[in-house]
């Protein structure tokens, strides 16, 4: 029975040895390329909007909205998850990934109804992002108010 204990103790190392690790070099190259490309598309949209007379901040906001739409559409067309398979963080971290994280559960849980399924589950992944984003911004606001 000592053997069982011994194996259990060494098990973490055994698992690490047996588990192939992802090819981080390739993953990072994909993430860099796809993430960078999405940002360039964002930059192009911003520049185009500016030529139509949008102010810098408004152009940035409009860009966000347009990218959210593109992310949502690509999710609906069953394309975004296939990009994510290669791009990893490259398609998770940009705002299009945020959009994907809202649309994917909304689509998946539609069958459980429009209110408790789609409505309630829409923010299962993205909800925490808004929760912690808002909380940290409020904390920053309080500190800024008292110490500015």
């Amino acid at each position, binding site marked *: 029975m000592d053997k069982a204990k011994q194996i259990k103790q060494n*098990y973490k190392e055994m698992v690490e040895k047996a588990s192939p690790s992802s090819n981080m070099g390739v993953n990072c190259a994909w993430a860099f390329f796809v993430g960078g490309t999405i940002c360039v598309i964002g930059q192009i949209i911003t520049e185009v909007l500016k030529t139509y007379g949008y102010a810098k901040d408004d152009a940035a906001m409009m860009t966000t909205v347009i990218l959210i739409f593109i992310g949502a559409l690509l999710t609906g067309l069953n394309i975004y998850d296939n990009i994510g398979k290669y791009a990893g963080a490259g398609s998770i971290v940009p705002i299009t990934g945020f959009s994907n994280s809202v649309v994917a559960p909304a689509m998946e849980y539609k069958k459980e109804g429009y209110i408790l399924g789609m409505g309630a589950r829409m923010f299962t*992944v993205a909800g925490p992002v808004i929760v912690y984003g808002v909380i940290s911004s409020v904390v920053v606001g309080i500190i800024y108010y008292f110490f500015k």
Partner: protein
Amino acid sequence: MNKHLGKQTIRFDNPPVILASSSIVGPREGEGPLATYFDTIIEDELYGESTWEKAESKLIEKALEKVIEKANKTIDDVKYIISGDLLNQLTASTFGIRNFKVPFIGVYGACSTMAESLSVAAIIVEGGFADYVIASTSSHFCCAEKQFRSPLELGGQRPLTSTWTVTGSGAIFLAESGEGPKITYITTGKIVDFNIKDAMNMGAVMAPAAADTIINHFIDTERDENYYDLIVTGDLGKVGKELLLDILKQYNYDITSKYMDCGIEIFEADKQDTHSGGSGCGCGAVTLAGYILSEMGKGKWKKVLFVATGAMLSQVSLQQGESIPGIAHAVAIEN
């Protein structure tokens, strides 16, 4: 005569006979190396239904209909159906057999369910409580992703240690007597927890459980690896396989030459992008019902130890920081 041996094993003096088995699989499994062994390959994962869950129920229903047909019996001959699946409250089994009007015993053993349902069925038959009993199980990739992981359309990467849930259902028709391979022993597994918390590495979770059950089977039956032609696990995948063989070697059992894993057999990992292998209740079930039993019929193997492995994953306990317990049940099938 005492039928219970050692710690975990039951010997059947009148071994129940496997009269027939049936398997139905999804499109991806139908493109895999075992395709020719399956009775039915469905064309799309929805199987003409409106939800993934209904599709999985239909898989069970069709597998049961098929096995009854192949055994040349009618539904009225069947005294019990023992079935289970991965979905909450065993919905796939419950809805799948809703129309059969046959007494139902639901079992949950995560991906070890095929061996568990087969064990219960064998006990009922050998105990003389019923002449015909069906054991079955199912899993469905889309249902499992939705319940245990993330929505299908969510973009992301699956680590190389992860496995691919098999879409499929297998059913086995047991009888008191007749022609076919017999169930001679069962070794019921214990919960074995080696403190793994990585839900993307199920092979690592289940390998110690598989080793524990195999070792106890050998001790209880006074057999060893030389007795069997084939020792087959349910869904350890490549990672779990390596760990299992390693652990067993430390106990001085070397099963390498007899060993096979259903999860590795069912997919061509590199081509089909399934990483460590197939998994899910359906993985062991369709490989046993389709591939192994039909090859046993042809005489490729005579003595098989089928060890289905399960990771008792719960989203709740996992999020509460608990590790994932594993279990494995063994069924000795001999010609």
